[in-house]
Protein backbone atom coordinates (compact mmCIF):
# COMPACT_ATOMS: atom_id res chain seq x y z
CA UNK A 1 0.00 0.00 0.00
CA UNK A 2 1.28 3.49 -0.73
CA UNK A 3 1.29 6.06 2.06
CA UNK A 4 -1.71 8.34 1.31
CA UNK A 5 -4.19 5.45 1.06
CA UNK A 6 -2.82 4.06 4.32
CA UNK A 7 -3.46 7.39 6.05
CA UNK A 8 -7.02 7.28 4.78
CA UNK A 9 -7.36 3.63 5.78
CA UNK A 10 -6.17 4.42 9.32
CA UNK A 11 -8.64 7.28 9.67
CA UNK A 12 -11.50 5.14 8.37
CA UNK A 13 -10.55 2.13 10.50
CA UNK A 14 -10.24 4.24 13.65
CA UNK A 15 -13.71 5.63 13.03
CA UNK A 16 -15.19 2.22 12.23
CA UNK A 17 -13.62 0.66 15.34
CA UNK A 18 -14.41 3.64 17.58
CA UNK A 19 -10.72 3.98 18.41
CA UNK A 20 -9.26 7.30 19.52
CA UNK A 21 -6.52 8.59 17.23
CA UNK A 22 -4.67 11.61 18.50
CA UNK A 23 -2.89 13.28 15.58
CA UNK A 24 0.31 12.96 17.58
CA UNK A 25 0.01 9.16 17.38
CA UNK A 26 -0.63 9.01 13.64
CA UNK A 27 2.96 8.59 12.49
CA UNK A 28 3.70 5.87 15.01
CA UNK A 29 0.46 3.99 14.32
CA UNK A 30 1.17 4.19 10.60
CA UNK A 31 4.73 2.94 11.02
CA UNK A 32 3.50 0.02 13.08
CA UNK A 33 0.76 -0.82 10.60
CA UNK A 34 3.24 -0.73 7.72
CA UNK A 35 5.49 -3.22 9.51
CA UNK A 36 2.58 -5.52 10.35
CA UNK A 37 1.15 -5.43 6.83
CA UNK A 38 4.58 -6.18 5.44
CA UNK A 39 4.87 -9.22 7.71
CA UNK A 40 1.31 -10.24 6.84
CA UNK A 41 2.03 -9.96 3.12
CA UNK A 42 5.00 -12.31 3.34
CA UNK A 43 2.72 -14.86 4.99
CA UNK A 44 -0.25 -14.33 2.67
CA UNK A 45 1.83 -14.70 -0.49
CA UNK A 46 3.00 -18.18 0.54
CA UNK A 47 1.10 -20.67 -1.59
CA UNK A 48 -0.91 -23.23 0.33
CA UNK A 49 -3.68 -25.60 -0.72
CA UNK A 50 -7.28 -24.49 -0.44
CA UNK A 51 -7.79 -27.40 1.95
CA UNK A 52 -5.11 -26.18 4.38
CA UNK A 53 -6.66 -25.79 7.84
CA UNK A 54 -5.85 -23.03 10.32
CA UNK A 55 -3.85 -24.14 13.36
CA UNK A 56 -6.62 -23.77 15.98
CA UNK A 57 -9.25 -26.48 15.55
CA UNK A 58 -12.52 -26.06 17.42
CA UNK A 59 -13.89 -29.18 19.06
CA UNK A 60 -17.58 -29.27 19.93
Amino acid at each position, binding site marked *: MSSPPLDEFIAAA*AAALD*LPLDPAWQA*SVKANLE*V*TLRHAAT*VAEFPLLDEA*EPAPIFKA
Partner: protein
Amino acid sequence: MSTNFTWSTGSEIAQAVASDKVSALSVVDAALAVIAARNPALNAFTAVTAERARARAKAIDASPDKAKLPLAGVPFAVKNLFDIEGLATVAGSKINRAHAPAKRDAELIARMEAAGAVLVGALNMGEYAYDFTGENVHDGPSRNPHDVTRMTGGSSGGSGAAVGGGLVPIALGSDTNGSIRVPSSLCGIFGLKPTYGRLTRARTFPFVASLDHLGPFARSVRDLSVSYDVMQGTDADDAACVDRPKESTLPFLDRGLDGLRIAVAGGYFRKGASPEALGALDGVAKTLNARTIEIPEAARARAAAYVITCTEGAALHLDRLRKQANDFDPAVRDRLIAAAMVPATLVVKAQIFRRWYREQVLALFKDCDVILAPATPVTAPKLGQQNFTLDGVDMPVRANMGLYTQPISFIGLPVVAVPVALKPLPIGLQIIAAPWREDIALRVAFALEQMGAVVAPRPQL
Protein backbone atom coordinates in the same frame (compact mmCIF):
# COMPACT_ATOMS: atom_id res chain seq x y z
CA MET B 1 24.38 -23.37 60.07
CA SER B 2 24.75 -20.35 57.86
CA THR B 3 21.55 -19.09 56.31
CA ASN B 4 23.33 -17.40 53.47
CA PHE B 5 21.55 -19.16 50.65
CA THR B 6 21.78 -16.26 48.23
CA TRP B 7 23.50 -18.27 45.55
CA SER B 8 22.24 -21.70 46.55
CA THR B 9 19.98 -23.57 44.19
CA GLY B 10 16.43 -24.36 45.16
CA SER B 11 17.31 -28.03 45.36
CA GLU B 12 20.13 -27.32 47.84
CA ILE B 13 17.80 -25.20 49.97
CA ALA B 14 15.06 -27.84 49.94
CA GLN B 15 17.51 -30.51 51.01
CA ALA B 16 18.78 -28.35 53.89
CA VAL B 17 15.25 -27.53 55.05
CA ALA B 18 14.00 -31.11 54.70
CA SER B 19 16.91 -32.42 56.80
CA ASP B 20 16.48 -29.74 59.51
CA LYS B 21 19.87 -28.15 58.79
CA VAL B 22 18.11 -24.84 58.44
CA SER B 23 14.56 -23.62 58.97
CA ALA B 24 12.38 -22.47 56.11
CA LEU B 25 11.75 -19.30 58.11
CA SER B 26 15.43 -18.42 58.30
CA VAL B 27 15.84 -19.07 54.56
CA VAL B 28 12.88 -16.82 53.79
CA ASP B 29 14.07 -14.10 56.16
CA ALA B 30 17.47 -14.18 54.49
CA ALA B 31 15.86 -13.95 51.05
CA LEU B 32 13.74 -10.99 52.14
CA ALA B 33 16.88 -9.26 53.43
CA VAL B 34 18.67 -9.85 50.12
CA ILE B 35 15.66 -8.52 48.21
CA ALA B 36 15.65 -5.39 50.39
CA ALA B 37 19.36 -4.89 49.81
CA ARG B 38 19.57 -5.56 46.06
CA ASN B 39 16.19 -4.60 44.68
CA PRO B 40 16.87 -0.84 44.71
CA ALA B 41 19.62 -1.49 42.14
CA LEU B 42 17.84 -4.15 40.08
CA ASN B 43 14.18 -3.04 40.28
CA ALA B 44 13.10 -6.66 39.92
CA PHE B 45 10.26 -6.68 42.46
CA THR B 46 7.06 -4.64 42.27
CA ALA B 47 5.59 -6.21 45.43
CA VAL B 48 7.14 -8.18 48.29
CA THR B 49 4.79 -10.53 50.15
CA ALA B 50 6.85 -10.74 53.35
CA GLU B 51 4.07 -11.44 55.82
CA ARG B 52 2.56 -14.18 53.72
CA ALA B 53 6.00 -15.68 53.06
CA ARG B 54 6.91 -15.84 56.75
CA ALA B 55 3.57 -17.47 57.60
CA ARG B 56 4.05 -20.03 54.86
CA ALA B 57 7.63 -20.75 55.97
CA LYS B 58 6.49 -21.32 59.56
CA ALA B 59 3.86 -23.76 58.30
CA ILE B 60 6.52 -25.71 56.42
CA ASP B 61 8.79 -25.80 59.46
CA ALA B 62 5.89 -27.24 61.48
CA SER B 63 4.90 -29.76 58.80
CA PRO B 64 5.64 -33.43 59.54
CA ASP B 65 5.80 -33.99 55.78
CA LYS B 66 8.44 -31.42 54.89
CA ALA B 67 11.01 -34.07 54.02
CA LYS B 68 8.69 -35.14 51.21
CA LEU B 69 8.39 -31.66 49.73
CA PRO B 70 10.74 -31.25 46.73
CA LEU B 71 10.83 -27.46 47.14
CA ALA B 72 10.62 -27.22 50.94
CA GLY B 73 11.33 -23.65 52.00
CA VAL B 74 12.50 -22.51 48.55
CA PRO B 75 11.72 -18.81 47.97
CA PHE B 76 10.27 -17.97 44.57
CA ALA B 77 8.62 -14.99 42.90
CA VAL B 78 6.33 -14.52 39.92
CA LYS B 79 5.97 -12.08 37.05
CA ASN B 80 3.24 -9.66 38.07
CA LEU B 81 0.74 -11.05 35.58
CA PHE B 82 0.19 -14.03 37.93
CA ASP B 83 -2.74 -13.62 40.30
CA ILE B 84 -1.59 -13.33 43.92
CA GLU B 85 -4.41 -13.44 46.44
CA GLY B 86 -4.98 -9.98 47.88
CA LEU B 87 -3.07 -8.06 45.18
CA ALA B 88 -4.28 -6.49 41.93
CA THR B 89 -2.75 -8.30 38.95
CA VAL B 90 -1.11 -5.36 37.21
CA ALA B 91 0.56 -7.16 34.27
CA GLY B 92 3.04 -4.31 34.02
CA SER B 93 0.29 -1.79 33.36
CA LYS B 94 -1.06 1.36 34.97
CA ILE B 95 -4.61 0.48 33.96
CA ASN B 96 -4.85 -2.81 35.87
CA ARG B 97 -3.84 -1.14 39.13
CA ALA B 98 -7.51 -0.26 39.47
CA HIS B 99 -8.49 -3.92 39.33
CA ALA B 100 -9.86 -5.59 42.44
CA PRO B 101 -7.38 -7.69 44.40
CA ALA B 102 -7.20 -11.28 43.17
CA LYS B 103 -9.29 -13.69 45.19
CA ARG B 104 -7.12 -16.72 44.53
CA ASP B 105 -3.54 -17.43 43.57
CA ALA B 106 -2.70 -18.47 40.03
CA GLU B 107 -2.80 -22.25 39.76
CA LEU B 108 0.95 -22.54 39.20
CA ILE B 109 1.64 -20.61 42.42
CA ALA B 110 -0.64 -23.05 44.25
CA ARG B 111 1.23 -26.00 42.74
CA MET B 112 4.64 -24.56 43.64
CA GLU B 113 3.51 -23.93 47.20
CA ALA B 114 1.99 -27.41 47.48
CA ALA B 115 5.54 -28.63 46.77
CA GLY B 116 6.91 -26.52 49.64
CA ALA B 117 8.04 -23.39 47.77
CA VAL B 118 7.39 -20.01 49.39
CA LEU B 119 6.13 -17.05 47.35
CA VAL B 120 8.02 -13.88 48.25
CA GLY B 121 6.63 -11.41 45.74
CA ALA B 122 5.67 -10.14 42.30
CA LEU B 123 8.13 -9.15 39.59
CA ASN B 124 8.48 -6.29 37.15
CA MET B 125 7.61 -6.83 33.48
CA GLY B 126 7.03 -4.99 30.23
CA GLU B 127 3.53 -3.56 29.91
CA TYR B 128 1.02 -6.30 29.14
CA ALA B 129 3.96 -8.54 28.17
CA TYR B 130 4.31 -6.80 24.79
CA ASP B 131 8.01 -6.20 25.12
CA PHE B 132 11.47 -7.70 24.69
CA THR B 133 13.45 -5.09 26.69
CA GLY B 134 12.37 -5.41 30.34
CA GLU B 135 11.73 -1.67 30.40
CA ASN B 136 8.50 -0.41 31.95
CA VAL B 137 7.37 3.21 31.75
CA HIS B 138 5.29 2.96 34.93
CA ASP B 139 7.60 1.00 37.24
CA GLY B 140 10.97 1.80 35.69
CA PRO B 141 13.19 -0.73 33.95
CA SER B 142 14.30 -3.97 35.50
CA ARG B 143 18.10 -3.86 35.46
CA ASN B 144 20.58 -6.49 34.35
CA PRO B 145 22.49 -7.94 37.32
CA HIS B 146 25.66 -8.22 35.21
CA ASP B 147 25.57 -4.50 34.37
CA VAL B 148 22.80 -2.39 35.85
CA THR B 149 23.06 0.08 32.98
CA ARG B 150 21.84 -2.63 30.62
CA MET B 151 18.54 -4.30 29.80
CA THR B 152 17.35 -7.54 31.36
CA GLY B 153 15.39 -8.38 28.24
CA GLY B 154 11.67 -8.90 28.45
CA SER B 155 8.99 -9.14 28.94
CA SER B 156 9.76 -11.20 32.08
CA GLY B 157 12.51 -8.73 32.98
CA GLY B 158 12.02 -8.83 36.72
CA SER B 159 12.17 -12.61 36.63
CA GLY B 160 15.54 -12.44 34.89
CA ALA B 161 16.90 -9.83 37.29
CA ALA B 162 15.63 -11.61 40.42
CA VAL B 163 17.12 -15.00 39.54
CA GLY B 164 20.27 -13.69 37.87
CA GLY B 165 20.88 -11.32 40.77
CA GLY B 166 20.49 -13.98 43.46
CA LEU B 167 17.31 -12.53 44.99
CA VAL B 168 15.47 -15.84 44.55
CA PRO B 169 16.62 -19.19 43.16
CA ILE B 170 13.46 -19.72 41.10
CA ALA B 171 10.96 -17.40 39.39
CA LEU B 172 8.01 -17.91 37.10
CA GLY B 173 7.32 -15.96 33.95
CA SER B 174 5.43 -16.08 30.68
CA ASP B 175 6.65 -16.53 27.13
CA THR B 176 4.50 -15.63 24.13
CA ASN B 177 7.29 -14.93 21.64
CA GLY B 178 10.41 -15.24 23.78
CA SER B 179 9.68 -13.57 27.11
CA ILE B 180 11.27 -16.38 29.14
CA ARG B 181 14.13 -17.11 26.74
CA VAL B 182 15.19 -13.51 26.04
CA PRO B 183 15.67 -12.48 29.72
CA SER B 184 17.32 -15.84 30.40
CA SER B 185 19.83 -15.06 27.67
CA LEU B 186 20.56 -11.49 28.72
CA CYS B 187 20.67 -12.23 32.47
CA GLY B 188 22.72 -15.44 32.16
CA ILE B 189 20.28 -17.93 33.66
CA PHE B 190 18.33 -21.04 32.69
CA GLY B 191 14.71 -20.86 31.54
CA LEU B 192 12.15 -23.40 30.41
CA LYS B 193 9.37 -22.62 27.97
CA PRO B 194 7.39 -25.85 27.97
CA THR B 195 5.25 -27.24 25.17
CA TYR B 196 2.18 -25.09 24.43
CA GLY B 197 -0.65 -26.42 26.56
CA ARG B 198 1.56 -28.23 29.05
CA LEU B 199 1.36 -25.85 32.06
CA THR B 200 -1.90 -24.25 33.06
CA ARG B 201 -2.28 -20.51 32.65
CA ALA B 202 -5.30 -20.33 34.94
CA ARG B 203 -5.55 -17.06 36.84
CA THR B 204 -2.82 -15.24 34.97
CA PHE B 205 -3.38 -12.15 32.84
CA PRO B 206 -3.25 -13.17 29.16
CA PHE B 207 -1.64 -11.58 26.13
CA VAL B 208 -2.05 -13.85 23.09
CA ALA B 209 -4.19 -16.92 23.80
CA SER B 210 -2.78 -18.76 20.76
CA LEU B 211 0.82 -18.37 21.90
CA ASP B 212 0.96 -17.77 25.66
CA HIS B 213 3.08 -20.18 27.72
CA LEU B 214 4.20 -20.10 31.37
CA GLY B 215 7.41 -21.54 32.77
CA PRO B 216 10.24 -21.33 35.30
CA PHE B 217 13.60 -19.55 35.49
CA ALA B 218 16.46 -20.86 37.66
CA ARG B 219 20.24 -20.90 38.06
CA SER B 220 20.43 -24.68 37.60
CA VAL B 221 18.85 -27.21 35.28
CA ARG B 222 17.82 -29.37 38.24
CA ASP B 223 15.75 -26.50 39.63
CA LEU B 224 14.02 -26.05 36.28
CA SER B 225 13.24 -29.74 36.20
CA VAL B 226 11.92 -29.94 39.78
CA SER B 227 9.72 -26.88 39.45
CA TYR B 228 8.44 -27.95 36.03
CA ASP B 229 7.59 -31.42 37.36
CA VAL B 230 5.57 -30.07 40.29
CA MET B 231 3.64 -27.65 38.05
CA GLN B 232 2.48 -30.24 35.51
CA GLY B 233 -1.08 -31.54 35.39
CA THR B 234 -4.28 -30.79 33.57
CA ASP B 235 -6.56 -27.92 34.55
CA ALA B 236 -10.06 -27.32 33.21
CA ASP B 237 -9.65 -23.62 34.00
CA ASP B 238 -7.25 -23.20 31.05
CA ALA B 239 -8.91 -24.18 27.75
CA ALA B 240 -5.52 -24.82 26.13
CA CYS B 241 -4.13 -27.00 28.93
CA VAL B 242 -3.92 -30.57 27.70
CA ASP B 243 -5.37 -33.59 29.45
CA ARG B 244 -2.13 -35.49 29.59
CA PRO B 245 -0.53 -37.49 32.37
CA LYS B 246 2.39 -35.92 34.23
CA GLU B 247 5.72 -36.88 32.69
CA SER B 248 8.44 -36.34 35.28
CA THR B 249 11.75 -35.15 33.94
CA LEU B 250 13.93 -35.35 37.06
CA PRO B 251 14.53 -39.13 36.90
CA PHE B 252 15.96 -38.75 33.39
CA LEU B 253 18.16 -35.68 33.86
CA ASP B 254 21.43 -37.52 34.33
CA ARG B 255 21.05 -40.03 31.51
CA GLY B 256 23.66 -38.20 29.47
CA LEU B 257 23.84 -37.67 25.75
CA ASP B 258 24.11 -41.28 24.59
CA GLY B 259 21.71 -42.01 21.77
CA LEU B 260 20.65 -38.41 21.29
CA ARG B 261 20.90 -36.87 17.83
CA ILE B 262 21.81 -33.20 18.09
CA ALA B 263 21.31 -30.66 15.33
CA VAL B 264 22.02 -26.95 15.08
CA ALA B 265 19.84 -24.55 13.12
CA GLY B 266 21.54 -22.79 10.21
CA GLY B 267 20.32 -20.23 7.70
CA TYR B 268 17.84 -17.85 9.31
CA PHE B 269 19.22 -18.60 12.78
CA ARG B 270 22.70 -17.34 11.85
CA LYS B 271 21.65 -14.31 9.87
CA GLY B 272 21.97 -11.20 12.01
CA ALA B 273 23.61 -12.99 14.93
CA SER B 274 26.45 -11.12 16.62
CA PRO B 275 29.91 -12.69 16.92
CA GLU B 276 29.09 -13.40 20.58
CA ALA B 277 25.91 -15.28 19.70
CA LEU B 278 27.60 -17.26 16.94
CA GLY B 279 30.66 -18.01 19.07
CA ALA B 280 28.50 -19.35 21.90
CA LEU B 281 26.39 -21.41 19.52
CA ASP B 282 29.30 -22.84 17.59
CA GLY B 283 31.18 -23.73 20.76
CA VAL B 284 28.29 -25.73 22.18
CA ALA B 285 27.43 -27.24 18.79
CA LYS B 286 31.00 -28.49 18.48
CA THR B 287 30.92 -29.92 22.00
CA LEU B 288 27.79 -31.86 21.07
CA ASN B 289 29.01 -32.81 17.59
CA ALA B 290 25.86 -31.25 16.16
CA ARG B 291 25.05 -31.33 12.46
CA THR B 292 23.55 -28.31 10.75
CA ILE B 293 19.94 -28.40 9.56
CA GLU B 294 17.62 -25.81 8.07
CA ILE B 295 14.31 -24.96 9.67
CA PRO B 296 12.21 -24.16 6.59
CA GLU B 297 10.46 -20.81 6.26
CA ALA B 298 11.55 -19.59 9.70
CA ALA B 299 11.44 -15.94 8.61
CA ARG B 300 7.87 -16.37 7.43
CA ALA B 301 7.03 -18.14 10.70
CA ARG B 302 8.34 -15.18 12.63
CA ALA B 303 6.26 -12.87 10.44
CA ALA B 304 3.14 -14.94 11.07
CA ALA B 305 3.81 -14.97 14.84
CA TYR B 306 4.11 -11.19 14.66
CA VAL B 307 0.71 -10.86 12.97
CA ILE B 308 -1.09 -13.25 15.33
CA THR B 309 0.52 -11.61 18.35
CA CYS B 310 -0.38 -8.04 17.58
CA THR B 311 -3.92 -8.77 16.41
CA GLU B 312 -4.87 -11.06 19.29
CA GLY B 313 -3.29 -8.53 21.65
CA ALA B 314 -5.34 -5.78 20.05
CA ALA B 315 -8.52 -7.82 20.43
CA LEU B 316 -7.71 -8.37 24.11
CA HIS B 317 -7.18 -4.68 24.76
CA LEU B 318 -9.70 -3.15 22.33
CA ASP B 319 -12.02 -1.75 24.98
CA ARG B 320 -9.13 -0.35 27.03
CA LEU B 321 -7.74 1.27 23.87
CA ARG B 322 -11.09 2.97 23.33
CA LYS B 323 -11.51 4.22 26.88
CA GLN B 324 -8.05 4.54 28.41
CA ALA B 325 -5.63 4.96 25.52
CA ASN B 326 -3.65 7.62 27.36
CA ASP B 327 -2.95 5.26 30.25
CA PHE B 328 -0.97 2.81 28.08
CA ASP B 329 2.75 2.92 27.48
CA PRO B 330 2.67 4.93 24.21
CA ALA B 331 4.81 2.36 22.41
CA VAL B 332 2.42 -0.45 23.35
CA ARG B 333 -0.65 1.67 22.57
CA ASP B 334 0.46 2.58 19.06
CA ARG B 335 1.34 -1.03 18.20
CA LEU B 336 -2.04 -2.23 19.45
CA ILE B 337 -4.08 0.49 17.72
CA ALA B 338 -2.33 -0.33 14.45
CA ALA B 339 -2.93 -4.04 15.01
CA ALA B 340 -6.64 -3.49 15.63
CA MET B 341 -6.82 -2.31 12.00
CA VAL B 342 -5.23 -5.39 10.40
CA PRO B 343 -7.76 -7.21 8.19
CA ALA B 344 -8.95 -10.53 9.61
CA THR B 345 -8.13 -12.29 6.33
CA LEU B 346 -4.45 -11.78 7.02
CA VAL B 347 -4.74 -13.21 10.50
CA VAL B 348 -6.48 -16.32 9.20
CA LYS B 349 -3.71 -16.70 6.62
CA ALA B 350 -1.18 -16.62 9.46
CA GLN B 351 -3.04 -19.36 11.31
CA ILE B 352 -3.20 -21.49 8.15
CA PHE B 353 0.53 -21.03 7.62
CA ARG B 354 1.09 -21.99 11.24
CA ARG B 355 -0.31 -25.48 10.72
CA TRP B 356 1.76 -26.00 7.55
CA TYR B 357 4.94 -24.82 9.27
CA ARG B 358 4.29 -27.05 12.28
CA GLU B 359 4.18 -30.11 10.02
CA GLN B 360 7.46 -29.16 8.33
CA VAL B 361 9.30 -28.65 11.60
CA LEU B 362 7.90 -31.78 13.25
CA ALA B 363 9.24 -33.76 10.30
CA LEU B 364 12.75 -32.59 11.22
CA PHE B 365 12.48 -34.40 14.53
CA LYS B 366 12.40 -37.75 12.71
CA ASP B 367 16.13 -37.31 12.24
CA CYS B 368 17.14 -35.41 15.36
CA ASP B 369 16.15 -35.14 19.02
CA VAL B 370 17.09 -31.55 19.73
CA ILE B 371 17.90 -28.48 17.68
CA LEU B 372 20.25 -25.78 18.97
CA ALA B 373 19.72 -22.13 18.08
CA PRO B 374 20.70 -18.75 19.50
CA ALA B 375 18.29 -17.28 22.07
CA THR B 376 19.08 -13.65 21.25
CA PRO B 377 21.08 -12.03 18.47
CA VAL B 378 23.16 -9.96 20.93
CA THR B 379 24.14 -9.66 24.59
CA ALA B 380 22.27 -7.15 26.76
CA PRO B 381 21.84 -3.72 25.08
CA LYS B 382 22.05 -0.51 27.08
CA LEU B 383 18.90 0.66 28.86
CA GLY B 384 17.06 3.07 26.61
CA GLN B 385 18.81 1.83 23.47
CA GLN B 386 16.27 2.09 20.65
CA ASN B 387 18.05 0.44 17.73
CA PHE B 388 20.75 -2.10 17.01
CA THR B 389 22.46 -3.20 13.82
CA LEU B 390 21.94 -6.80 12.79
CA ASP B 391 23.63 -8.06 9.63
CA GLY B 392 24.25 -4.48 8.56
CA VAL B 393 20.62 -3.43 8.99
CA ASP B 394 19.57 -0.91 11.64
CA MET B 395 16.39 -2.06 13.39
CA PRO B 396 14.41 -1.48 16.61
CA VAL B 397 15.57 -3.45 19.66
CA ARG B 398 12.10 -3.75 21.12
CA ALA B 399 10.59 -5.66 18.21
CA ASN B 400 13.61 -7.67 17.12
CA MET B 401 15.23 -9.18 20.19
CA GLY B 402 12.98 -12.19 19.65
CA LEU B 403 14.04 -12.94 16.08
CA TYR B 404 15.22 -16.43 16.99
CA THR B 405 12.66 -17.25 19.65
CA GLN B 406 9.49 -16.36 17.75
CA PRO B 407 9.64 -19.07 15.06
CA ILE B 408 9.88 -21.70 17.83
CA SER B 409 7.14 -20.63 20.28
CA PHE B 410 4.95 -20.03 17.21
CA ILE B 411 4.41 -23.79 17.09
CA GLY B 412 4.68 -24.41 20.81
CA LEU B 413 7.89 -26.44 20.90
CA PRO B 414 9.51 -26.94 24.31
CA VAL B 415 12.77 -25.05 24.79
CA VAL B 416 15.37 -24.85 27.52
CA ALA B 417 17.36 -21.61 27.38
CA VAL B 418 20.91 -22.19 28.64
CA PRO B 419 23.49 -19.51 29.50
CA VAL B 420 26.99 -19.34 28.06
CA ALA B 421 29.10 -17.34 30.52
CA LEU B 422 30.84 -14.99 28.11
CA LYS B 423 32.71 -11.99 29.56
CA PRO B 424 31.64 -9.35 30.28
CA LEU B 425 28.06 -10.31 29.43
CA PRO B 426 26.46 -13.75 29.11
CA ILE B 427 24.31 -14.92 26.22
CA GLY B 428 21.86 -17.77 25.90
CA LEU B 429 21.15 -20.63 23.53
CA GLN B 430 17.92 -22.47 22.85
CA ILE B 431 17.76 -26.24 23.19
CA ILE B 432 14.62 -27.09 21.24
CA ALA B 433 12.84 -30.44 21.39
CA ALA B 434 9.78 -32.04 19.83
CA PRO B 435 6.43 -31.40 21.52
CA TRP B 436 6.11 -33.02 24.97
CA ARG B 437 9.83 -33.89 25.08
CA GLU B 438 10.86 -31.40 27.75
CA ASP B 439 12.71 -34.35 29.27
CA ILE B 440 15.13 -34.47 26.34
CA ALA B 441 15.78 -30.72 26.25
CA LEU B 442 16.42 -30.73 30.01
CA ARG B 443 18.65 -33.80 29.72
CA VAL B 444 20.85 -32.08 27.12
CA ALA B 445 20.94 -28.89 29.20
CA PHE B 446 21.94 -30.87 32.30
CA ALA B 447 24.72 -32.66 30.40
CA LEU B 448 26.08 -29.33 29.18
CA GLU B 449 25.89 -27.94 32.72
CA GLN B 450 27.80 -30.96 34.05
CA MET B 451 30.49 -30.40 31.42
CA GLY B 452 30.76 -26.73 32.38
CA ALA B 453 29.80 -25.65 28.86
CA VAL B 454 26.81 -23.72 30.22
CA VAL B 455 26.57 -22.09 33.64
CA ALA B 456 24.71 -19.24 35.28
CA PRO B 457 27.55 -16.79 36.04
CA ARG B 458 27.46 -15.00 39.39
CA PRO B 459 27.45 -11.23 38.93
CA GLN B 460 29.37 -8.79 41.10
CA LEU B 461 26.67 -6.95 43.04
